[in-house]
């Protein structure tokens, strides 16, 4: 009995971690700038490949993962400075531009890196509860997801950058008129969103085989979570992660993986009907 309960909790934690880690970067960029970053998957891919290359060069995994996340962040800042910043008041153009970037990067990587690479293997082995075997690394991923949420909370609620970033999110003109350099806020937030996408890739790198289009593996979950959560990372992404993880874990357990995937999409449709601004829009309306 205990083993069954643990198994369900473990699967919930696994799905929750995947949703949160996949969505956090996308949610920050959308919440801060209203930009739907179609190249989100390529930032994730960047984190994966940099991590794998570093490990293959003999670096310890955690260091390689940090470098993977940082490089995605730097690429993000470079992209923001050169292209994205011209598109802040043109949401449709920004979708097209980031989508174009996504296509070019994916095709470029297919040409440059070939179609598949050897993975690096999941570390930390497994443990046993009752008759079930579980991967220890999956628990690390759950811890990382909680860590990302806690870190975002601290950054946005407790730091000077966070206060200025929230002011910019709520009323960019007014923030400017008070002296906030909103372009810096945008660049920093875009970099942070890209770095979190890179971190997602870096954390999942040891669990998958590498192909240049693997960013797609994460895309459905990340967009679904952001759509359900709404524009606010703190109020939206975490509750959306819990809600969707419950739906998916239950359907996975009863009807299998395909049902879980379909259930996720149905959950989105239901939430959009009931709460057009997502969970965070609904929560902040109730607050007022």
């Amino acid at each position: 009995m205990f083993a069954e309960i643990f198994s369900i909790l473990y699967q919930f934690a696994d799905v929750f971690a995947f949703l949160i880690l996949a969505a956090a970067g996308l949610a920050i960029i959308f919440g801060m700038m209203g930009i739907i970053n179609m190249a989100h998957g390529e930032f994730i891919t960047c984190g994966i490949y940099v991590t794998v290359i570093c490990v293959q060069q003999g670096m310890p995994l955690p260091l390689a993962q940090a470098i993977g996340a940082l490089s995605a962040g730097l690429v993000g800042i470079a992209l923001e400075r050169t292209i994205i910043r011209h598109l802040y008041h043109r949401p449709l153009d920004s979708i097209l531009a980031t989508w174009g970037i996504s296509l070019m990067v994916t095709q470029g990587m297919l040409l440059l890196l070939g179609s598949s690479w050897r993975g690096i293997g999941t570390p930390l082995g497994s443990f046993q509860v009752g008759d079930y075997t579980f991967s220890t690394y999956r628990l690390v991923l759950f811890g990382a997801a909680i860590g990302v949420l806690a870190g975002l909370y601290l950054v946005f609620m407790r730091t000077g950058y966070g206060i200025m970033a929230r002011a910019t999110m709520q009323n960019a003109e007014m923030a400017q008129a008070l002296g906030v350099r909103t372009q810096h806020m945008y660049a920093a937030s875009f970099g942070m969103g890209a770095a979190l996408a890179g971190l997602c890739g870096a954390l999942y790198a040891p669990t998958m085989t590498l192909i240049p289009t693997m960013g797609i593996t994460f895309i459905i979950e990340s967009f679904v979570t952001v759509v359900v959560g709404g524009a606010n990372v703190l109020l939206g992404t975490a509750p959306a992660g819990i809600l969707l993880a419950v739906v998916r874990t239950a359907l996975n357990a009863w009807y299998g993986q395909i049902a879980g995937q379909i259930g996720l999409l149905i959950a989105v449709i239901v939430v959009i009907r009931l709460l057009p601004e997502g969970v965070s829009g609904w929560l902040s309306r109730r607050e007022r």
Partner: protein
Amino acid sequence: MSAEPVLDVVGLHAAYGSTPVLRGIDMHLGKGEIVSLIGRNGVGKTTTMRCLIGLVRATAGHIRLRGQAITHLPPADRARLGIGYIPQGRQVFPRMTVEENLRVSQLAGGKSDPQMMERVFAYFPILKERRRQSAGTLSGGEQQQLAIGRAMVGNPLLLLLDEPSEGIQPSIVRMICEALKSIRDQLGVTILFVEQNLDTIMEISERCYVADKGTIVAEIGRQELHTSEAVRRHLLI
């Protein structure tokens, strides 16, 4: 005018798209003056204020702050040079606490003074009481005090207020007027405010610019202001 010049506006033009809205605004304010800008709805008062802080681009003319040309600087730089902007409708950050609203300008301000936060609480004690409350839940009068306090935390030499009495009960308006006068008396801050309310205009302004169709059509001096007639006439043109 003998006082040291703080704000000089010469021939300011601005447009929304191809529709001209400002067609040559001229104003000169010296240190420590309290001047009002009046005129009917839609003559361009708010546009003038937004142009002064830089949220609307000037298509011609000059703006100088203490002699320095700021006409083409972005809003954040103007704020850091000492302009405190209090917009029409207050525009506090609704989902942040009172204290966080104040911290925004403290963090952003180029030359912010740690004493300023306490000073603001002394001018507007209600803000200290409500410091942990989210700004969206404050009353209109409290939000107006917060908007002024927020601008003051940046330690400005010039305050721009756009209809500070709009929608606020008279006793709070009087209290805000008193606070503005002490801000001027104690800190030498220059104040330009847009106003429709005759009582408020008479209460604190020492001089008055009258705007119509995007230009300044009259200036009412200290002497004339003693009788409310001139002001009343222009408000009702």
